[in-house]
């Protein structure tokens, strides 16, 4: 080949290469510059994953950090109907889950086989929510063994109440609607905004196995767990209080029963129990009537447990002294067109004896001397007719009319707890004032909130208490009278605790009939007391609604008070004031 031929060929080859490079360059420019945004987005969409972070709902603890409400790790079983396979394979999967999780095979099959909804492909179908961790792990292994496709386990948590029925009405519960938590009652509802977690998400570039690339871009917004809540409840005291409520229910089969224990100096609610109750972990068996917090929302006529307040008013205004004597008319007294009766006929009784024996006539006569305005003001000072401030919903104010609305009978009936209604919490709070020397404390149920990230606790401050006694010596006089109630000759000798002075008052009130008037067969039997009387560790209220066999507060409620108080004093390590022969009982019945 001639030299010119070679050069021509080289030029041709060079030209072709040049044009080729030119085209490649143009293509490169088109891809890298012209379609940069479009292709970059495509690539990013393919290799960018988004992980949603839900955060965890706050936990609820008792005052000592014992868990009352937790989150239990579990899994949702999810199917991607696009890859679960043929109908035959779906039937096989459905049969497996129906057997393993006790589900309807038809329903599971329907979920697996629904591949399209409203013209859109379905890629997320829930087979079962909240499968326990242990079972979920077993299922994961079995799915792998059997080679099922398109089944995933999605990590989640569900609300768990490890103490079952304990404190159920106070804690409440939540329902889950898809991903949304819907609080239904109790603390769960009252502080829902603080307990709720703030969701976050993480966008990251991943490799084909889904692992994030170390050099890839990452954008994360942190999820925040909800605040933990510490209640003033003491789990041990709560447990023994509820155990004794069960004993009361077994013995007297009341329609309902409740008990409250409060620290009279701080207003901290130490225990709060109610029967009937429910187990928030077993939703299928829940009776809506058992959800209601009767201690807060239900009102009842307190009966004789109101008497100390009327006496306190009269002592405060210097109208009476503990030794002042009143004629109790042998148990029948005609006043304002109606007969007022005592349970037993008494003649002349001192004020101390009026309280000790719970004379209605004596108390009514004292109140008449006090006058309706001063009686009204006394009751107001003890917090009747106002809310206690507990942060739970549907708290009732009770029924407490203004003096202008009183009739001629009111002044003789209100001081014996008729025609006036209060919540069990209002009554227990009023007794706190009797116990602590006359300070109407604000009740506390929530002690503090804790930020789970930092561990910083924010305590709910104590609110200043209002004074209830006008005279300094009223408390001591009243304390002496109330202590005699549990001593020989009193109405609540069954509330006495060997070695301790116990102060308290029984209450037996007839229930109001829907048609008007009082029932002769349905009663509230109550006892409210505190121990040790001179420096009380707690105030306890016990009430039985329609007890069977017996209806007297001194018979039905006082023994329950005694058992709760005895155990609580032991637990709180409060030694007896008086020497008693030690009685050793085994811990189990």
């Amino acid at each position, binding site marked *: 080949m001639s030299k010119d031929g070679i050069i021509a060929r080289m030029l041709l080859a060079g030209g072709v290469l040049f044009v080729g490079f030119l085209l490649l360059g143009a293509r490169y420019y088109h891809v890298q510059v012209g379609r940069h945004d479009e292709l970059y987005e495509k690539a990013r969409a393919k290799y960018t994953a988004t992980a949603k972070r839900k955060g965890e709902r706050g936990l609820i603890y008792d005052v000592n950090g*014992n*868990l009352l409400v*937790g*989150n*239990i*790790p579990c899994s949702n079983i999810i199917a991607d109907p696009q890859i679960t396979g043929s109908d035959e394979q779906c039937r096989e999967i459905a049969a497996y889950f129906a057997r393993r999780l006790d589900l309807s095979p038809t329903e599971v099959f329907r979920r697996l086989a629904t591949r399209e909804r409203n013209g859109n492909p379905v890629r997320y179908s829930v087979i079962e929510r909240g499968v326990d*961790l*242990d079972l979920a792990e077993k299922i994961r292994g079995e799915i792998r063994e059997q080679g099922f496709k398109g089944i995933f386990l999605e*990590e989640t948590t569900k609300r*768990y109440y*490890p*103490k*079952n029925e*304990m404190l159920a009405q106070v804690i409440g519960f939540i329902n889950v609607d898809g991903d949304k938590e819907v609080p239904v009652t109790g603390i769960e509802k009252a502080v829902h905004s603080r307990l709720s977690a703030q969701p976050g998400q993480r966008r990251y570039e991943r490799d084909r196995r889904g*692992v*994030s*690339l*170390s*050099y890839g871009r990452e954008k994360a917004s942190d999820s925040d767990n909800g605040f933990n809540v510490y209640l003033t409840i003491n*789990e*041990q005291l709560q*447990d*023994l209080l509820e*155990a004794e409520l069960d004993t009361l229910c077994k013995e007297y089969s009341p329609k309902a029963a409740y008990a409250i224990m409060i620290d009279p100096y701080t207003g901290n609610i130490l225990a709060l129990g109610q029967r009937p109750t429910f187990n928030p972990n077993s939703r299928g068996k829940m009776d809506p009537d058992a959800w209601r917090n009767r201690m807060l929302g239900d009102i009842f006529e307190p009966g004789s447990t109101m008497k100390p307040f009327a006496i306190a008013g009269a002592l405060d205004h210097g109208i009476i002294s503990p030794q002042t004597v009143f004629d109790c008319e042998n148990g029948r007294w005609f006043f304002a067109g109606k007969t007022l009766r005592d349970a037993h006929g008494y003649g002349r009784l001192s004020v101390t004896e009026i309280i000790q024996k719970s004379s209605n006539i004596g108390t009514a006569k004292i109140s008449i001397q006090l006058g309706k305005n001063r009686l009204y003001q006394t009751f107001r000072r003890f917090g009747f007719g106002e809310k206690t401030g507990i942060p739970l919903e549907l708290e009732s104010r009770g029924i407490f009319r203004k003096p202008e609305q009183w009739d001629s009978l009111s002044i003789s009936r209100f001081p014996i707890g008729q025609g006036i209604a209060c919540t069990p919490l209002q009554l227990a709070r009023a007794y706190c004032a009797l116990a602590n020397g006359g300070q109407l404390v604000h009740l506390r149920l929530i002690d503090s909130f804790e930020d789970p990230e930092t561990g910083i606790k924010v305590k709910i401050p104590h609110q200043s208490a209002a004074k209830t006694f006008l005279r300094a010596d009223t408390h001591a006089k009243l304390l002496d009278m109330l202590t005699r109630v549990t001593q020989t000759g009193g109405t609540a000798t069954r509330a006495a605790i060997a070695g301790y002075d116990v102060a308290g008052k029984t209450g037996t009130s007839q229930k109001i009939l829907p048609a008007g008037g009082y029932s002769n067969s349905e009663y509230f039997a109550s006892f409210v007391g505190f121990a040790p009387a001179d420096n009380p560790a707690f105030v306890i209220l016990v009430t039985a609604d329609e007890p069977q066999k017996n209806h007297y507060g001194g018979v039905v409620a006082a023994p329950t008070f005694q058992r709760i108080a005895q*155990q609580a*004093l*032991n*637990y*709180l*390590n*409060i*030694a*007896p004031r008086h020497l008693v022969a*030690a009685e*050793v*009982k*085994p*811990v*189990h*019945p």
Partner: protein
Amino acid sequence: MSAMNFRTYTMDGAGRKRRAKRNRGTVAHWSLVRVLLPFFFPLAILFTVVVVRVKFQSDHEKLHRAAAHMQLKIHECDREIQNLNNKLEHFSRRQFINQQVARFNLPLRNPQPGQMRNLTGARPDEAGAGTTQPPRKLIISRR
């Protein structure tokens, strides 16, 4: 000892030509190396850097994957711990403990008030350690 064979060559004209040609080839090779060396050397360095970088990146990714795997394991352990804590709370209930005491007929009873005393004292390991912290409280049963 094995015999050794030697062949001798006489340097004739053809031999000289071959040698000259070989020498010319060597010179040409050396000159080519001299020309290409400035190009090859940076390329070799670049190649080495790239290889080292790829190796480093690969190790980094491997470590990253191991870390992710470990994080997943930690997360699973956390969930398991959370699950166990819930179970512990369930079993630490007084009612449950009383049931077990009754079930196994254990000779236990509730303590009486005054049986427990709060004593303030230094732990043996803290005694004489010259610590400025206040001593921890010890709860000692009188039983």
